[in-house]
Each structure stands twice: as C-alpha cells, then as structure tokens.
C-alpha cells in the first residue's frame, strides 16, 4: 500500500493538516502536499481510467508531465475537468473526482474494452463501422464519443465565478524555469545589468537538485537555492515569479507566461489567472528534463512509476507508493531512488539494471545499503490489475522467457532523460540527436530566429543536455552570459558555482524490455498511458505504411493526449525507428506546439468578458434612449434604437407608429452615429473629386450634395451628404459603419498615393450630437425654441447654416433621408442630451416621437432611397442602382472608374434596381430570389433577381420592396415570382422604386 512516511517531506508542513475530498471520501493531507501526494498518503494509488481501454491508472509522474492522474476539480461555477493531481496544490476543502469511468472508478463498464483490446488496435475505427452508411452517425459515433472524451463537461449553464487578466511585460532576458540552472542563468544574466524576468511553474524554487542531492559550492542544494534567491530578490533588475509557467514562445521574442494566482486559494480576491504577454530580447529555457518510462509489459499498472517521481514523493512529500519496491533502469540515476527509499525505511527488493555492466558509484552505494542489483536483467511482465502484485523478471537480451517471479507492490522505472525542448522548438528551433545520452537536445546551430535574424532562445542546464550537477550549473552560467550578451549587455564573466555529484556511468538505450519481447508482451507494453498506445500499435502503423512520424502519431494517437507526449514521444519514435529499420534522427520528431501545458480559456480571453467583452459605443442620447424603451440594435460597435417600444406595445406596432408619426407630425432621430469628416486644404476639392464618383469641387459654400464612394475595385462602399464649409473646407458625412473606415480610406490614399497634395483630414464624428428633426411640424418646433431663422428662404433644401436654436449653438443641414421636411441639427456632444430633451419637451404639442432605425429604413424605402448594406453588399456598382446621375461624366478619374469599365461591369445583363409590389399587398420575404426558367448546368434553378429591402409600409398599408432584377427597368409592370422558404410563391410586380410622394414635394417646403 502507499502511505505517508514517518519522517521526510521537505515541502510539507506536518503541523498544518488539510481536509479534502476525493470521489466523496474525506481525506487528510498537509500544507505543501499536491493532490497526488495527498492521495497516495491515503493509499489512493488508482486515480483514473485510461482513454481508450478504460484501464486503471495510477500516478506515474510528479509534475507537469503527468498523463494519468487527472481529476475533475472543484464544484459548480468553479468546476474544472482534467486537472493534473501532480500540479494541484492541496488546499482546505478541495473536492475532486476521478474521470472516464461509469459507474465508478473501481468498477467501470468501459473496462470491457480492455478485454477487447486485441480487437481494437491502432486505427481500428478506420477499418470498421463502414456499413451500413447511416450507422456511423447514429450508432457507432455516439458510442465512440461517449467512451472517449476524458473529463466531465462543466454544467451547460456554468458561468465561471472567477476573473482573468493580461499583463504586458518587457524584459531583456526572460528565464523560464526556477531550478538551479534557471536561478544561476538569471543571476549570470542579471550581473550584466540586463533586466531579467525569472518564472517558475511550481510554488517552490530549486527544481530537482534538492531531491537529487550533491553539493553546490560546498552547500547542500537547498541552502544554495535559498542563498541565490536572496541575492536575486535583492537585485533591482530582477523580477521573479512562482506559479508562473512559460507556456509558449512566439515570433519576435514574444512569450506567454501563465500565472496561477488563486488556484490554491479559491475565492480569494483578484483574478484567478494572469496571462503575461512578454516581449523579451532573449529567452533562456532552463526547463529541465523529463524522465522516460521503460517499455515492458504491464508498465501501465498502478504502482509502476517513474523512478525520479517516486524519489520526489519520498523526499518532498514523505509518501511512498509501496512497501516492497523494485527498481528497473538502464542508467545510474535510478539508483538514487533505490537509495532514498531504502534510507526512508522502504524495502527495496532489487534493482533490475538492463546494462550487463551494472551501475557505477551509485550502484555501489546501493549495494552497500544491502540492495540487491541484477545486471543484464529486465522486467518481462507486471502482474496485477488495479495495483502491482508481482513482476516476472527475465534477461534483457531475449524474448522474455526463463522468468523469475517476485512479489512487490511498486515499481520504479527509468529509461533515461529527455531535455524539455518545447519552448526552444515552438518558434522553429531545431534539435539534434545525442547518441551518448540517447535524447534530442537543442541544436545550437539552428535556434529560433528573431526579428533581427539572430537566435533569441538559449537553452540552459538539463534542458540543453547536461546531466551532472556540475555540468548543469556551468551550462547555466554560460547561457545566462550568452543571453545577456545577445541582449546587448556586457556580461561579467564569472566562474559557475561548483556542483559536485556522484559520477555516473553512461546509460544504455533500452526501447523495449526485454529487447526482443514477443508479440503478447509487446501488446501489453505501453508507450502512451493516457491514450493507450502500445509498442505493437506503433509497429502496426509502420507495417501499414504510416511511416512518417506524423502519420504514426495521427494513426495511433501517440502523444496526442493531454500531456502531448511528454512521456511517450521519444519511446514512440525509437519504436517506430526500429520498426522501419532507420535511425531515430532520420525519423525525426513531431512538431512542438504551444502551450507547454494546457492553459485556461479564461486566461486567454483575459478581462474581455461580460460588460467589457467588446466596447459598446454610446451616443450622448444613449442613456435617454435606454430609459425610453429603446429596443437595441447593434450597428458595428454602436447600439442604436431599432424602435422605441412603449409599455404594452409590440416592437412592430412601435415601428408602424413611428413611421406614420414622422410623416404626419414630428419625428426625432438620434443620428449622432453618422460619420463626420472634415477635409481641408488647397487640394481638398481635387482630393474629394477622386474620393467620390460625383463632382465635389464645384459645390458652393453653404450647400450640400449627396455623394457616392466606390472602392478602387468599382464597388459602392459608402454614401452620404457632403457640405462645403468654405473655400478650402468640406464636411463629409458617412454612414454609421463608415466613419472610421472612410476616414482610414481617405488617410490611406492621401498618405500613400497623393502625398504631395495639400490636404488634411480630421474625423469629428463624436464631437457632435446630430439630431434629425423630421416631419410637417419640424419647422414649428424649431421656431418655438427660437434662435436662427429656419425658413425655407434662410435655409433652402440642401442648404446648411450655423446658428443657435434656443440656447444651443448648432449647425443645421436641410437634408432629408425620409422625404419629409427635415433638418439635421448638430450640437456639441456634451450638450446633445440637453438639446434632445429640449426638442422632446417643446415638441409635445406637435406630437413629437423619437423613431428608430427600422422606421428610418422604412421611410427611406418608401422614397426609394438606397441604403448601404441593404441595396449594396460589396458586389454592387452605382450603375446597378440607377445612380448614374451621381457619377460625374466630366471627371477623367475617380476611385472605381477604371474598374467599372471592365466587361462584367458594363454587361447589360447585370441586375438593376427596381421597386417591387406584391400583387396581394403582402410583404415579400427578405432576401428572396426571383426564379427564372429552367436550371443551370449544375442543376440549380436559374434566378433573375432578388429582394434587397422589403417592409410593411404603414403609410401605404401594404408591403413595399426594392430589388435587383435582370433588365428590371425595361420590364415595368411585369409580374415575377419569388419562391419563399415557407413553400409559398410570392408574385410581385416590377414598379418604380419611389413609392411615396414621387414629386418630392414634402421635403421641399
């Protein structure tokens, strides 16, 4: 059984007991425990089930590389699936559940897959479930999906109880990893004066060294770490963070660091996670190395664990996974585990060393402690289901025969170490294969390249290959100095601290145990514990021609689990290489992608949720609108009232009321969102003549003109009224969506094409609240408020003037988008609300009503005015809309002119704008197409037109519409058919698009 040891545990505080829950059972641990160590202390070795076969899974590692011990953490609005028990700090009241089983962890129906394993090899689903066709979607897939998936999905209505934030940080040197290498590299870099940011993913410093032992400058690693930390903390140009994982390296020195602020103190004030967006001149990756499992039959049984992890649990947390342990290894380092266990009072039955030579100094020390060492031996098979019961031992060179069985309850395995090269590789750093140490390490000749074309990532310590404490520290010193130097600082070259550790003999690569294990054994030798990928699966992939490492990965799902292959990739590659008879470097690796370990979606979104998910742009009248029944419509980032709905009224009743009232009495429109752009300068007229299809240079001061803008590709992009202010100043109105776009459009042409023209542009859209006073009573209400002369004589239609209305300084435009007598009045935004309220108050006796965007649409449609975004969709040229009158014939050039000369643009078969009237007065469906005769070569029904706008007109009490129709203007009076998606056929007559006041009398009074 796994238990807490009487002594040991450098990271736990035995005086502070913590109570937590696992699968409903209350358990106890200590402050400083991880969930994994605490579970083991409570003899909970089995922590989950595997992905494919639902096999029992126990913790195998002690850190970020853990593939098995994944739990559902927390409850309700704080529930989080797939949380690694090995990186979860224990806290009072923690609740956790194991995953991927039904009905429970101990008894899981899905485990039947284990029995069927032989029938479910890699890629089996590509070969099965093919017939009958509908069964995939309705039978096979649902079963596969339910047995797959890992953690429980949060409740569908869950709203995260926590907040998140981002932080922009800039450093000369970013050091990732707070082990002795990271600490030393940071120190070395900082001594040059460089600004250093050092991040460590766990809550404690020092990494493996304090567990592995040895001395640094004569000090125990713990003491040295303390001392170095104190120095770094005292250094102004160094910033250090724990619980902050360097998660990704991107181009131009951009790096992400994932800080977990309150995961260990849920509910504490402040954000839960902070995602650091770092720009670093140089990045040092002191990310250490990860131990490799050994591939032997039954290496996935709970109780089989990485040797280093077992050592961590004993030394850091004072827990042992078993009482009678066997160590299997191909290197010397694993002997440290045997020794630690023995010293902690755990019975170490023997060390099975695949090397015939046996081990070195560490092996001797083990022997001197009375541990039996068996050189040249291997584990043939582990027996036991939910827990290791015994092992069968055989010779390493063989197929696994002649076995000796030994009863035990835990196995420590070590297949050597692989440097953590993820961050080095994210941005294109390449790797080389080190034969001596049998691992891939960063190739110093091919680093990831930064903006200046030089490398910007420097690996340090074990992440760069070195193994012994001395080499690691020396490499870290060099790396720190190199990074500082590359960042433009002059490093103080100092000697690295002297690290002393036992001399280790070279490892012997062992990719399969025993070397020639037969098929039954290979089918039980796991490579990827979570995804259930075995040696036999990789061999099958190779046999079937999935030879590329990417093919094998995807075919077998090797390395695609939540640990992204941290434990399985190298063993898998080696297995593939052997199967193909190639060398490992020839086979190569799969691509390393961010993040290093998974990061929360919440942290990626940062602060952008709820009210600040996206900006909402508000006009000065916004709050009034909100308080007066506005049914909001998002227009770009603006919110505009679709209609002002009164109590007990439906939205459409409101619209009809507003439409009638604007024609009969007095309507107010908050038009503040319309773009207002000042164009000034000696060449402003010339410039506007290029921007607009029509002539603007000859507009008289005091006058307004409706203008069209096209893209260089010929298509209509915006329209609006242009007013000439004085000799060299124009004011251009744009659509609501157009203000920023058109301002940018003008700046672009000004800066990049006609930069020698003397023109300045300013976007003054938000300086003004602009209110349209519309209807027969428009003039009355303005006269009542008093001020400027608003008579037709003073300000004729399409004229403008500055003046005062009541106390308000304003600019008045006699323009109309409704066909009614209409003044658009601009006042300073800070007085906008006051002005609006004054109009509402004074307008009462004239039947004033505010109207929204839908009424605006209907009023303009009744007049046959086009609307950008309705009649246009990015494929429409002015000629399609019968707007030729607004295209200057005199001008040699304007944006879009040349484009409009292309054959398809001048094609007489382009659909043209017409009005459409349903025969029965009903409303045409929006977006309906007019069906023509027959079908095209692809069997699609031929079409001859479509509806662009369609409304119920309360003023005409019938449906009105505009549309684009083939030869439309030549077919007045013809009736065409629009099949609706409701199955009905709508018949409509082609008519003139102006439905109301054709002579335009009403606007011009």
């Amino acid at each position, binding site marked *: 059984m796994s238990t807490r040891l009487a002594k040991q545990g450098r990271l736990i505080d035995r005086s502070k007991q913590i109570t937590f829950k696992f699968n409903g059972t209350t358990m106890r641990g200590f402050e400083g425990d991880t969930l994994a160590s605490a579970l083991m202390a409570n003899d909970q070795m089995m922590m989950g089930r595997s*992905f494919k076969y639902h096999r029992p899974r126990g913790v195998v590692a002690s850190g970020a590389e853990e593939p098995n011990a994944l739990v559902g953490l927390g409850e309700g609005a704080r529930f*989080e*699936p797939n949380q690694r028990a090995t990186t979860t700090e224990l806290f009072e009241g923690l609740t956790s559940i194991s995953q991927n089983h039904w009905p429970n962890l101990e008894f899981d129906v899905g485990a039947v897959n284990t029995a069927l394993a032989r029938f479910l*090899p890699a890629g*089996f689903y590509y*070969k*099965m479930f*093919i017939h009958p*066709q509908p069964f*995939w*979607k309705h039978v096979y*897939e649902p079963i596969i999906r339910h047995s*797959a998936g*890992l*953690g*429980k*999905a*949060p409740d*569908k209505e869950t*709203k*995260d109880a926590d907040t998140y934030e981002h932080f922009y940080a800039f450093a000369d040197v970013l050091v990732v990893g707070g082990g002795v290498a990271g600490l030393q590299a940071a120190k070395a870099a900082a001594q040059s004066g460089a600004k250093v940011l050092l991040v460590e993913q766990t809550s404690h410093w020092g990494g493996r060294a304090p567990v592995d032992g040895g001395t640094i400058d004569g000090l125990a690693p713990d003491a040295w770490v303390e001392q170095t930390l104190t120095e770094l903390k005292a250094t102004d140009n160094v910033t250090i963070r724990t619980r902050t994982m360097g998660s*990704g390296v*991107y181009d131009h020195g951009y790096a992400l660091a994932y800080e977990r602020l309150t995961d260990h103190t849920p509910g504490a004030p402040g954000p839960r996670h902070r995602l650091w*967006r770092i720009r670093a001149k140089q990045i040092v990756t002191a990310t250490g190395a990860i131990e490799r499992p050994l591939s032997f039959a039954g290496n996935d049984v709970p109780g089989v664990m990485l040797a280093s992890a077992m050592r961590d649990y004993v030394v850091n947390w004072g827990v042992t996974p078993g009482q009678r342990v066997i160590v299997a290894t191909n290197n010397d380092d694993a002997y440290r585990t045997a020794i630690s266990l023995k010293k902690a009072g755990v019975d170490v039955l023997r060390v099975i060393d695949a090397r015939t030579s046996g081990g070195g100094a560490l092996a001797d020390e083990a022997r001197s402690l009375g541990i039996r060492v068996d050189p040249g031996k291997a584990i043939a098979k582990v027996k036991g289901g939910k827990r290791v019961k015994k092992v069968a031992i055989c010779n390493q060179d063989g197929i696994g025969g002649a076995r000796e069985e030994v009863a035990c309850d835990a196995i420590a395995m070590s297949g050597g170490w692989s440097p953590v090269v993820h961050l080095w590789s994210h*941005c294109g750093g390449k790797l080389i294969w080190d034969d001596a140490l049998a691992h891939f390490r960063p190739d110093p000749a091919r680093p990831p390249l930064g903006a200046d074309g030089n490398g910007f990532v420097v690996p340090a310590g074990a992440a760069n290959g070195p193994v012994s404490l001395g080499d690691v520290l020396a490499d870290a010193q060099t790396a720190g100095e190199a990074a500082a130097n590359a960042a433009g600082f002059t490093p103080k070259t100092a000697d690295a601290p002297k690290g002393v550790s036992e001399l280790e003999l070279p490892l012997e690569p062992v990719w399969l145990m025993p070397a020639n294990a037969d*098929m039954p054994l290979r*089918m039980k030798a796991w490579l990827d514990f979570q995804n259930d990928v075995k040696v*036999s699966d990789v061999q*099958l992939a190779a046999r*079937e021609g999935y*030879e*590329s490492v*990417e093919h094998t990965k*995807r*075919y077998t799902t090797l390395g695609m689990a939540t640990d992204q292959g941290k434990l399985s990739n190298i063993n898998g590659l080696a297995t593939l290489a052997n199967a193909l008879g190639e060398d490992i470097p020839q086979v190569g690796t799969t691509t390393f*992608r*961010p993040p290093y370990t*998974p990061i*929360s*979606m*919440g942290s*990626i*979104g*940062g602060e952008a*949720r709820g*009210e600040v*998910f996206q900006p909402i742009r508000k006009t000065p009248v916004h709050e009034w609108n909100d308080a007066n029944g506005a049914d909001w*419509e*998002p227009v770009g980032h603006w919110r505009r009232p679709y209609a002002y709905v009164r109590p007990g009224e439906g939205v459409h009743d409101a619209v009809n009321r507003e439409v009638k009232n604007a024609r009969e009495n007095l309507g107010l429109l908050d038009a503040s969102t319309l773009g207002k752009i000042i164009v000034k300068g000696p060449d402003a007229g010339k410039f506007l003549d290029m921007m607009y299809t029509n002539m603007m240079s000859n507009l008289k001061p005091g006058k307004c003109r409706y203008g069209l803008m096209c893209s260089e590709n*010929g298509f209509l992009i915006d329209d609006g009224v242009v007013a000439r202010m004085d000799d060299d100043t124009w004011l251009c109105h744009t659509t609501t969506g157009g203000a920023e776009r058109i301002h940018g459009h003008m700046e672009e042409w000004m800066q990049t094409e006609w930069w020698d023209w003397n023109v300045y542009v300013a976007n003054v859209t938000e300086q003004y609240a602009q209110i349209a006073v519309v209807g027969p009573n428009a003039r009355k209400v303005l006269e009542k408020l008093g001020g400027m002369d608003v008579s037709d004589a003073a300000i004729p239609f399409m004229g403008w003037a500055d003046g005062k209305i009541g106390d308000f300084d304003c600019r008045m435009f006699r323009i109309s988008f409704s066909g009614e007598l209409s003044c658009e009045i601009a006042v300073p935004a800070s007085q906008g609300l006051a002005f609006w309220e004054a109009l509402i108050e004074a307008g009462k006796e004239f039947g004033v009503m505010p109207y929204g965007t839908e009424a605006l649409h209907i009023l303009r449609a009744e007049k046959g005015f086009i609307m950008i975004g309705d009649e246009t969709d990015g*494929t429409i040229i002015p000629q399609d809309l019968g707007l030729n009158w607004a295209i200057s014939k005199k001008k040699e050039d304007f944006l879009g002119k040349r484009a409009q000369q292309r054959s*398809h643009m001048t094609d007489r078969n382009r659909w043209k704008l017409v009005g459409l009237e349903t025969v029965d007065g009903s409303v045409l469906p929006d*977006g309906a*197409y007019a069906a023509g005769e027959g079908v095209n*070569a692809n069997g*699609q*029904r031929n*079409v001859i037109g479509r509806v662009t706008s369609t409304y119920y007109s309360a003023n005409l009490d019938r449906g009105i519409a505009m549309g684009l129709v083939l030869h439309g203007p030549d077919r007045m009076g013809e009736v065409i058919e629009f099949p*609706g*998606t409701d199955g009905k056929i709508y018949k409509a007559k082609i008519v003139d698009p102006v439905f109301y006041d054709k002579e335009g009398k009403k606007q011009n009074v």
Partner: protein
Amino acid sequence: MKHYSAFAVAREALRYHTGWERAWRSPEPKKRYDVIIVGAGGHGLATAYYLGKNYGIQNVAIIEKGWLGGGNTGRNTTIIRSNYLQDPSAAIYEKARSLYEGLSQDLNYNVMFSPRGVMMLAQTQHEIRGYQRTAHANALQGVKTEWITPERVKELVPIINLDGPRYPVLGALWQERGGTARHDAVAWGYARACSAMGMDIIQQCEVTGVRSENGHVVGVDTTKGAIDCDKLGMVVAGHSGQLAEMAGFRLPLEGIALQALVSEPIKPCMDVVVMANTVHGYMSQSDKGEMVIGGGTDGFNNYTQRGSFHHAEETVRALVETFPMISRLKMLRQWGGIVDMTGDRSPLISKTPLGGCFINGGWGTGGFKAIPGSGWGMAQLMATGHSPLTEAFSLDRFKEGRFIDESVAAGVAH
C-alpha cells in the same frame, strides 16, 4: 487491396494484426505518366482518384514534397457544409458534401463523416437578412438549409448563452446534413484507393522545376529526377505561387497564416458545429472530446505555419462569451497553416497560361469541406477540358470583374 471490415479486423486480431498490408505503396517515380498531380493533400489525391474512377486515367503520379495529407488537410477544423450564397460555390460545396455522405463506403475507409449539423448564428439584424437571403438561395440551389429560432438553437446547443450582454442570438441558418469528418482519414482513404488503382504516390519528393515545350507542359524536375507527363495539375494550397512561378505565370494569390486550436477532451457536450461570425469564432467537438476551435487569419504574408497569438485570443474571447462553460476548459494545443487567398476569397480551379497545366488552389480558409467536389470537378476539367462545377472559378474572372464573393451575406468561408 485487402478489404476493410469488422470481420477483417477480427480475423487479423487472431494473428496479432501481423497480416495487414500497406495502405499505400511508396514507389520510385517512373519516367513518364499521363498525368502528374503535384501535392498529395486532400484536393490532389481526390483529383487523382476521380481521374481514375470517372475517366479511367490511372497512369498517374501524385508528387508530395513532404508526407501525404501533411498540409492544410491535416491542419484544419474539419467542418463540412454547403450553405453558400453564390451559385458556383453552392454547386461545388454541395457536390462535395453529397460525396462525403458515401465516401467511407466508396473508399472502403472510414472517414467518419458525421452529418451532425452546422449552425451559423445570426446576432445582428444585418446577419438575419444575410442568412435569410442565403436560405432562399439555397432552396433554389438544391441545398437543404433552414432558418431556425433562438429556442431551437438552444435545444440543439444546450451550452450556448443565448443572450450574451453584447450580442443576443436572434436565430441561425441551419444545415442539418453539414458536419465534420476525420481529416487525416480523408487523405489516407483517397491515397489507399489511388494506390490500389496503380497510381504512384511519391512522398518526400519536391518539384524543382516545370518543363514545357512550345507553350505546353512536358514534365517536371524533382528532387527524385525528371518526370515526364502530358498533363500537370498543381494542387499545393499555400505554395501555389511558388509553383506557378516555376511554370512561368503568376497568380492572384497571397499566402497567409490561419490558426486553429483544441481544448483538452471532455465528455460530449455539443453535438453540432456552431459558427458565430459577428464575434468571429466557431467551434465543434471532436469524437475524441476536444473542443475544436477555428482562429482568425493574419493580414500579412507568412510562410512559417505559425500565426500571431492575438488572433487565437480574439477567437477564444468570443467563444467564452458565446459558450461560458468553456471558460475553465484548457487550451491543449494551437497550430497554424498557410492558406492562399484570392482577390475574392473564392478558389481557383482553372486552366493556366501554360498548355496542359491546371491549377487548383486559393481555397483560403475553407478547403477541407470541398475536397471531394474539388477533386471531382478538377478531374473533369483535366480529363475533358471543361467542367460546369469549376467553370466560374477560372483565372480570367478577375480581369472581367466577375467575382464570386461569399462575404456579402456575412458568411465566412470557414
């Protein structure tokens, strides 16, 4: 070719699966082929497959500089739909979708086509109009789509937040027979079928030059030597520009990075594909349980197969708002691909200025869903010189100003 079936798997199990043969051969190139397809991605392999199946042209080589299916075929978010607005798009995507329906049986390889339904949310009045227009167009194009209410949206997608503080869900365009498929399996299935027809799939072989005589292609130079051919099909997605340059012409294309990401796997919680274009995000759940999320494109030329992080960030932000329950899920992996964008964001399937040389590219962000239709049409074009499916996608449309613009109905091309 050994037939795949549950029975075959059971039989092989008895001998520990040692009896399976290679899914495709890896031959050395011959001196000459009737047709050479450059690019062993989905589109290239499908083109070769239908050349053989529909036109009996089987003396074909598919040349791949890397490993087959290793480009955008193996990097995309596997969405399949045909609810496009413009006739030419709807025609080719619906052809593709209908071929996907029976592809597993046709190829005897389970590509896991899952017609789980694709939903495009309308979150503004403008989007409502756009999608209603699309629905009307689809009805006449023979594409089955429908407009559904917010209530129905919630039924189909229980995890959705209907009235987010920013954009309420006002309805959706729903294509019930849209869905997803296993992207690798599509490439592998076509490859296996091509190989079985005797076609040569030559991986790890890069084209270094295109040889022509008096205006007609006669072969290609490769890292495995010169190979002759009568007809050449360029189907290389992100690298179309480079290949066209070798053939002596230029294309209206630009290569940019597109990103995607997946969450850790969780138990099934979303059975359909949801696209939210107003906030620029789309998401589906894979059979493995991962939430598969599409990111945005960069605005600049980029051949690194890495995108800029802020695009992934914008997408995740939008989806957390749309599906609040994913906030505490974790991003497992993000990646990028190179997509080639044309002037109107619609593909090129066309003859080229070089006789006997054909191009299939410019699929931008939406190529996977088109693979079978694209291969079908491209094969017809190469074999007969004309295909109604591909006619509108010819190169000359840009000169004439005859664009195929799908963005008009607020539809994105994912």
